[in-house]
């Protein structure tokens, strides 16, 4: 079934290139999206068997990210049909510079969109690092024609930057693959670089090579994920692509790159070196949030504003994993929430763009009057994305902040909250002035809002609202499992080596209780106890390793991993 999930959209994509009738091609797009979503939904009930000898397998993390991708694609397919129906064919005038341009053929657009889905599915299902690399590079190639849908020189510039920066970045991740193979080669000549095998043999891996591999993976996939200062392609690509594509890039593609980093972090954690990765992720995460905050304040282009907001949220994900413990749980939950909210905002931004014919925030006024439904959604989406209650992002951001405070990362928590506040104020100014006021008479040509143009955004908006009020048990369990693989070891014992074992245990307990409190329906006692044991064990192992020093490098690695492995990673 995993193969069907990948090959289905790929076949549909190939077919879309040759279908000439518009209605047939659009029908195919929606049908393929629905079939993909249906199969993904079924995978929750009945986990599909591994394929290709374990290279393709949907574990908890993979299934979670696949579900986000599939959901957003379904929404984007419906939205895209209405979008394509309104995009005029032939040559037309560019509203920014009054030059003439035409769109890419719809066949190419639909075909690449479906291939994009196939490659993203392959990313989420790949357990082999080599295959994962191939899939991530393939997503770049499948999506670059989508960015160049409007054939004018601004989108061409964005496409070129995207292609070149991401390809070079991902070439570095390939180097990471080779270094990982060397690290694994020390464990035995025939350990394949499949995540599960590496985790099993993590104790015998060569630590310096493994760390070097992590660095290259972080830079490579971090470029694709949009972590500052590697994010330079992101605002251009997101602002120039059609809105349905922007939603997919931001909500699904960035997560796929994040998954690549999570997989190597999983191996690193199993080798007892989780803290090394977590520290780096924390630094990159906070840097991304800071850079995003700088550019979000008084941003003059509302699609670029949403793009920088994506940089911010990728930073939050990285920082969450970096803090560790319950913050990892928060980060995984945040990945789900951010994707839904951001896709919704891009869909609404597309509607605004279609009505006002400008991306400049200064020229858009009175959206509430011109597009009543989109205007309300625009405000609701703004509240959701900035983490206001009762939306899902509030819950996940709160979980991360509380975990940071509980673990003694007070400075991190303060910086985190301060950046969120700056971003809230920065975005509020832009969004509210767009929603209110009197629309400029000359430029506005109101268009009726159809079910297809606002429907997907409404559904996503209700979903992210629902995620704030009640997280379904199945989702919570999947998020917990996904967070557990990244190394529940809380980062706090690092740099605070003085903490005793009892204290660490207490802190672990507290952290777990917070997770229970933050999420409705507390976890069962057994889970709490196990999580507690795992947290304290990891922390002990890390502290022990700190004490061990360089001389006992080999021993300390063994110790750390045994403690981790004993918990059944």
């Amino acid at each position, binding site marked *: 079934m995993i193969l069907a999930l990948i090959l289905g959209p790929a076949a549909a994509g190939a077919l879309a290139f040759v279908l000439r009738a518009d209605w047939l091609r659009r029908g195919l797009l929606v049908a393929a999206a629905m079939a993909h979503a249906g199969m993904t939904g079924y995978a929750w009930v009945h986990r599909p068997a591994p394929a*290709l000898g374990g290279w393709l397998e949907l574990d908890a993390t993979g299934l979670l990210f696949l579900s986000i991708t599939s959901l957003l694609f379904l929404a984007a397919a419906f939205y895209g049909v209405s979008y394509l129906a309104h995009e005029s064919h032939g040559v037309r005038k560019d509203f920014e510079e009054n030059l003439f341009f035409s769109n890419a053929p719809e066949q190419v657009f639909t075909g690449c969109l479906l291939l994009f889905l196939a490659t993203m599915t392959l990313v989420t299902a790949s357990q*082999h690092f*080599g*295959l994962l*690399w*191939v899939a991530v*590079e*393939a997503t*770049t*190639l499948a999506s*670059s*024609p989508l960015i*160049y849908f409007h*054939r*004018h*020189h*601004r989108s*061409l*510039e*964005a*496409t*070129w*930057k995207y*292609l*070149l920066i991401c*390809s*070079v970045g991902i*070439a*570095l991740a*390939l*180097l990471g*693959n*080779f*270094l990982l*193979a*060397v690290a694994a*080669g*020390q464990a035995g*000549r025939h350990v*394949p670089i499949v995540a599960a095998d590496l985790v099993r043999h993590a104790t015998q891996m060569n630590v310096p090579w493994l760390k070097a591999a992590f660095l290259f993976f972080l830079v490579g996939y971090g470029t694709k994920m949009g972590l500052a200062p590697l994010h330079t392609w992101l*605002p*251009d690509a997101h*602002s*120039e692509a059609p809105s349905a594509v922007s939603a997919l890039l931001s909500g699904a593609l960035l997560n796929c790159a994040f998954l690549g980093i999570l997989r190597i972090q999983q191996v690193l954690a199993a080798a007892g070196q989780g803290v090394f990765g977590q520290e780096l992720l924390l630094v990159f995460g906070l840097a991304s949030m800071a850079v995003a905050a700088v*550019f979000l304040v008084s*941003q003059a282009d509302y699609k*670029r504003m949403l793009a920088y907001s994506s940089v911010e949220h990728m930073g939050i994900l990285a920082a969450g994993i970096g803090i560790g413990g319950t913050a990892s749980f928060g980060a995984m939950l945040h990945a789900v929430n951010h994707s839904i909210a951001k896709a919704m905002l891009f869909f609404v931004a597309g509607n605004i763009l279609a009505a006002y014919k400008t991306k400049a925030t200064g020229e858009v006024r009175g959206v509430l009057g011109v597009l009543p439904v989109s205007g309300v959604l625009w405000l609701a989406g703004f509240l959701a994305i900035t983490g206001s209650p009762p939306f899902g992002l509030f819950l996940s951001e709160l979980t991360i902040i509380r975990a940071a405070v509980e673990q003694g990362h007070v400075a991190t928590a303060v910086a985190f909250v301060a950046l969120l506040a700056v971003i809230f104020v920065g975005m509020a100014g832009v969004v509210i002035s767009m929603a209110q006021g009197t629309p400029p008479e000359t430029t506005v040509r109101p268009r009726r809002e159809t079910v297809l143009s606002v429907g997907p955004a409404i559904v996503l908006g209700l979903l992210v609202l629902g995620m704030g009020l009640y997280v379904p048990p199945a989702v919570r369990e999947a998020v917990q499992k996904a967070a557990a693989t990244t190394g529940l070891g809380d980062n706090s014992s690092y740099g605070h080596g003085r903490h005793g074992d009892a204290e660490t245990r207490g802190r672990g307990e507290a952290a777990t209780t917070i997770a229970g409190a933050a999420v409705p329906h507390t976890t069962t006692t057994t889970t709490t106890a196990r999580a507690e044991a795992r947290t304290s064990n990891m922390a002990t192992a890390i502290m022990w390793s700190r004490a061990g020093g360089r001389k006992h490098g080999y021993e300390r690695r063994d110790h750390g991993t045994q403690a981790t492995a004993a918990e059944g990673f």
Partner: protein
Amino acid sequence: MNVWIDALIVLVVLTNLKLLGSSRLVPCIRILALQGVVLGLLPLVAGVEPITVRMVIVAAVSIGLKGAVLPWLLMRALRGADVRREIEPLVSYGMSLLIGMAALPGALWIGSRLPLPDPRVSSLLVPTALFTMMVGMFLIVSRKKALTQVLGYLAIENGVYAIGMALAQEQPLLVEMGILLDVFAAVFVMGITLFRISREFDNIDTDEMALLKD
């Protein structure tokens, strides 16, 4: 046997220096093709492991792709763009060569500090691979023509490939083929984009693409 390997490795270094010092684009494409062919041949003549059918297949596909298909794609893009030379690079050719000469000992030094997992592999291979990657990166940041940037990307890819050859044990065939397919698709898409750029801007200078910024 070792003499041959070292000779091939030195040839790779020379192709890199030529890439740094040449202003004409067509010879640059040819020299990069040569580099790809040499790197494809290396595993066959290295004699570290007995030659298997698998190795021959990978080498053949790799040589065919980097020696023939990619140069052909790039030549086509070049004809469409109607440019022959890189004029006014951001860093002059003499300076580029000097930087290259300075980077070479750096690469040798880093390479000498990395412990090789397999002692039978020539100790020159990793430094050469690193040097190739450095040259690729330098080409991307110091040249204006979009085509030269693609050449830089390919040089980086060659360097990574060579490091993989020196360090890693054999990758599974499916993964090797996937990687080569991706490289092909990347150059294919970049070639199309190049063609579009030349149509849209009347040239392929990337410094004219500076509209999108904050």
